[in-house]
């Protein structure tokens, strides 16, 4: 197993411990847990709390985005596995500054059940909760079944926007509205070039021929829309952008945020090569990129490949997206 680890069964725990030790200014483990990370100053009294969570193995998602102007607390499971409802309830309590808590997470069955159950638990403690599900992966279902889509890198923009809205003092209903608007706007599309190894499974999540790629594959190796010969960077950029543009039907003059994201192994050099084409295409379409991000923002450990996320911006979303925020993985 070509991974650096001590024990597959403590991989997630050791990762989170190391994260909190290296960056104590940003991250703290909630008392008596090994899987719930909070801001060191959580809960922030009088602010709407924002909680996320899901499987480990996606750093900086989820834990990395805990911080001022971002998330308040996060529950992490084993690699690619949901955290427990118990841990989610702990995260919700830690995030609750008395104004209620938004649960903001990816549209995966296990996570939904557990966050629902966690909600049942904390509602008995009079904590008000709302939910926004991230479902930005265009490849995972057609537009008219949008509610079935998986959540992928679009969560980064949505975390940022929701965090800024909470920071600005909006109430729970308003923070939820803004987060839902961002989540509704995000469209993502990924391409996988190589697998990763889930520590407890010990073998690659999928296999791809040496000259193959799979367009639309999910961040846990879920099947995509098309497996084919590895294309050029420009072809890949088009394959990522075309379905997004079809889905969004942007008007000329639209402003967008763009995230060109590595799934892990793919170097940023190659993301910048993709970015050239994406920027050319959007320029040609009269779309203005007002907020580009290129780097590793939502990974699947050492998976090779990249994803593209486009989020149309109105003034409200742009303001929140570009507002200051602070965590170990964000540089505005």
């Amino acid at each position, binding site marked *: 197993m070509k991974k650096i680890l001590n024990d597959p069964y403590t991989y997630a725990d050791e990762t989170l411990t190391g994260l909190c030790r290296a960056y104590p200014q940003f991250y703290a483990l909630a008392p008596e847990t090994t899987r719930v990370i909070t801001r060191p100053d959580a809960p922030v009294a009088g602010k709407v709390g924002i909680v996320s969570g899901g499987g480990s193995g996606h750093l900086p998602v989820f834990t990395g985005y805990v911080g001022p102007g971002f998330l308040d607390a996060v529950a992490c499971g084993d690699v690619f596995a*949901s955290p427990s*409802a118990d841990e989610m309830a702990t995260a919700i309590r830690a995030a609750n500054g008395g104004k209620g808590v938004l649960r903001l997470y990816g549209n995966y069955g296990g996570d939904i059940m557990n966050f629902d159950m966690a909600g049942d638990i904390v509602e008995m403690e009079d904590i008000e909760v709302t939910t926004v599900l991230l479902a930005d992966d265009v490849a995972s279902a057609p537009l008219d079944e949008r509610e079935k889509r998986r959540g992928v890198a679009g969560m980064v923009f949505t975390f940022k926007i929701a965090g800024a809205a909470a920071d600005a003092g909006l109430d729970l209903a308003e923070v939820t509205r803004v987060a839902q608007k961002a989540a509704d706007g995000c469209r993502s599309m990924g391409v996988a070039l190589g697998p990763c190894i889930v520590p407890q499974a010990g073998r690659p999540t999928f296999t791809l021929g040496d000259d193959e790629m799979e367009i639309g594959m999910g961040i846990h190796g879920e099947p995509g829309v098309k497996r084919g010969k590895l294309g050029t960077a420009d072809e890949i950029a088009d394959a990522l952008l075309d379905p997004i543009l079809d889905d969004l039907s942007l008007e000329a003059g639209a402003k967008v945020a763009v995230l060109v994201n590595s799934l892990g192994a793919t170097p940023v050099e190659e993301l910048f090569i993709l970015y050239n084409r994406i920027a050319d295409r959007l320029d040609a379409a009269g779309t203005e990129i007002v907020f580009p991000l290129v780097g590793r923002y939502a990974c699947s450990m050492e998976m090779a490949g990249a994803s593209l996320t486009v989020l149309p911006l109105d003034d409200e979303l742009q303001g929140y997206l570009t507002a200051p925020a602070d965590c170990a993985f964000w540089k505005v």
Partner: protein
Amino acid sequence: MAGMTRASLDHAISAVLATLETEHEGLTALDGKLGDGDLGITLLKAFRQLDTIRPDLPEDLGQAFMQCAQGVMKVSSSSFGTLLATGLMTAAKTGKGWTELDWAEVPDLLHRVVEALAARGRSALGQKTVLDALDAAATAAEGKDSPRPMLQAAREGIDSALDTYRDKPNQIGRARVYAERSVGMDDPGMVALKVMAGAL
């Protein structure tokens, strides 16, 4: 034995755990074909945990089921684990204040569990999940008032649900994305229920 007691629970945990110790690999392999291959280990972890709290379960069935639910919730967060915990919480509500539950009430309880799981899973009958097998078991068990015939009927219900759904596609959960491939294959969660029922 006139009804279900703490001792029945005790026996069920031991029996299912014993079977899972050998059967979990098969469940994991099956789940691996349509999902993330964690179903066997999920159940094994859940029942090992239940086995550690088994000796200290209270006589009150409500409290006993609730402790079981919490035990499962602690160690397992995969869909099936959460559904199992949800089912145990439903049973806890029914058993609250009772140390013995008439066997004749069990089919009704199972139907309530099906409803709770559907709510938790945001799913419905007919989507080829453990719900369909559990619903068939509950229906088949209706009208029986002693454990052996009831169990026998439930097993037959599960088997017929497996037969009914085998050649349909999975419509929810992780297996949905492999919908086409799932035609001709048993749903892992339904098989898990069969394994557990078979162990009792």
